[in-house]
C-alpha cells in the first residue's frame, strides 16, 4: 500500500450545532462539538450497518506513529438516500475526514465531512443534510 503523508490538526473553538445530536443514542457529551479535527489517512474498515455507519482509518500522528481512528456517521438509510453506499469508501482509499472528536480524548469522532483526494466533499453534516441522530 502506498505510504501517505498523514497528519491531523486540532482546530479548537469552531462551533457547530449540537442540538440535533440527541435522539436514540444519547450522544449528549460523547463528542466535543466545539472542536474539529482534520484527519488524513487510509480507510481500514467500512462498517456499513445500523445503528450508525462507522468508518475506520489509519492516521499518522505528529511523531509518525499510526493511530487507528474511527468516526461515526448517520444511519444506513439516511446515507443511502443521499446516494452513498457501502462501496462509496473502500479499504485502502486515501481520505481526509473532518470530525468532532471524542470528549474522552480517544481516537473516535463523529463526522463533519469527508474530503476525497480530488477535493470533492461527501457525507457532509452541514445544513442538516446528514443528520447524525
Amino acid at each position, binding site marked *: 500500500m502506498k505510504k501517505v503523508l498523514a497528519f491531523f490538526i486540532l482546530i479548537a473553538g469552531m462551533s457547530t450545532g449540537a442540538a440535533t445530536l440527541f435522539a436514540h443514542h444519547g450522544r449528549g457529551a460523547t463528542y466535543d462539538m466545539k472542536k474539529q479535527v482534520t484527519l488524513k489517512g487510509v480507510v481500514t474498515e467500512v462498517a456499513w450497518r445500523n445503528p450508525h455507519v462507522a468508518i475506520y482509518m489509519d492516521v499518522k500522528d505528529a511523531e509518525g506513529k499510526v493511530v487507528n481512528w474511527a468516526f461515526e456517521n448517520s444511519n444506513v438509510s439516511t446515507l443511502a438516500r443521499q446516494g452513498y453506499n457501502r462501496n462509496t469508501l473502500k479499504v485502502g482509499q486515501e481520505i481526509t475526514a473532518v470530525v468532532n472528536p471524542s470528549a474522552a480524548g480517544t481516537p*473516535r469522532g463523529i463526522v463533519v465531512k469527508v474530503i476525497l483526494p480530488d477535493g470533492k466533499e461527501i457525507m457532509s453534516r452541514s445544513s442538516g443534510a446528514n443528520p447524525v441522530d
Partner: protein
Amino acid sequence: MQSRWIAALMLMLFSLPAIGQNRFDPQDLSGFWLSDVGGHTLGTKAPPLTAEGMAAMKGRIPDNLNRLPGNAPWYACNPMGFPRLVLDNEPVEFVMTRNRVLQLFQWEWTLRELWTDGRELPSGDNLENLGPAWYGHSVGRWEGDTLVVNTVGLDERAWLDNPGNPKSFYARIEERYRRTAADTIELQMTLYDPKFYTAPWVGAKKTYKRMPAKDVTFSGWKSLYSGNTDAICAPMNEAEDYNKRIRDPAAFGDKKPR
C-alpha cells in the same frame, strides 16, 4: 334568475373537490402516521412517586444533553416497551382489521395488537396468569369517534420514558385516539398507577400527521430505515459492535461504561 342558478351550480362544482378532500371516516385510522412527540416523554410533569416508585427508579441513569450516555435498557437491544415506543417520533402504521387495530412501528420493527372484539381487559387471576409483557395487554373500544385503548400487565423493567420513569405491572394506561381531520389524529394518554405514583399522570395531547406517500418507501418510512435497511436492534450491531467499538471509547475512554 337563470344566471343565479348557473352561479349556484358553478359554486357547487368548484366546491366538490374541496369537500372530497375533507371527507373521512373518523373510525378509520389506517395509514402511515408521524407524531409530533418530542423528548420521548408524556410531555407533562410527573406526579410525585410513591416510595415503591422511587425504589423502582433506583439505578436508572438517563441520558442528558450534558451527560454521557445513560443505561437505558434499549442500548442493549431490549424492547423499548409500551408506552416508550409510542412516545417516539418515528413512523407508525395503523392497520384496521375486523377484531383488532394493529400498530406497526418502524422503530424496533414491531407491532401492538389492540383488541376491539369486545373482550375484557385482563384483571385478577387472568392478569396474573398472563404476567408482565413488554407491550402489555391491550383492549380497545369506540366511544363515539374516539378509540379508547387500555393497556395493563406492563413489564416493570422497561422504562416509561427517556428520563427513566417507572410504571408498575398493575398500572393501566389509557390512550384516546381521535381522528380530527383527514390528515390528523390526536392522542391523549393517561397513566393510572397508584402503586408507583401519588396521582394519575395525564400526558400532553399529541398530534399525528399523515405521512406523504412519497415518504413511505422500500428504503424506509420518512427516509429512516426499514425494509432493506432495517431498524431492528441487533445485539451484534448495537451492543457488540457500535457500543463497544465506537460509543464507549468515545464517551468513556478507559473508564468502565455505565
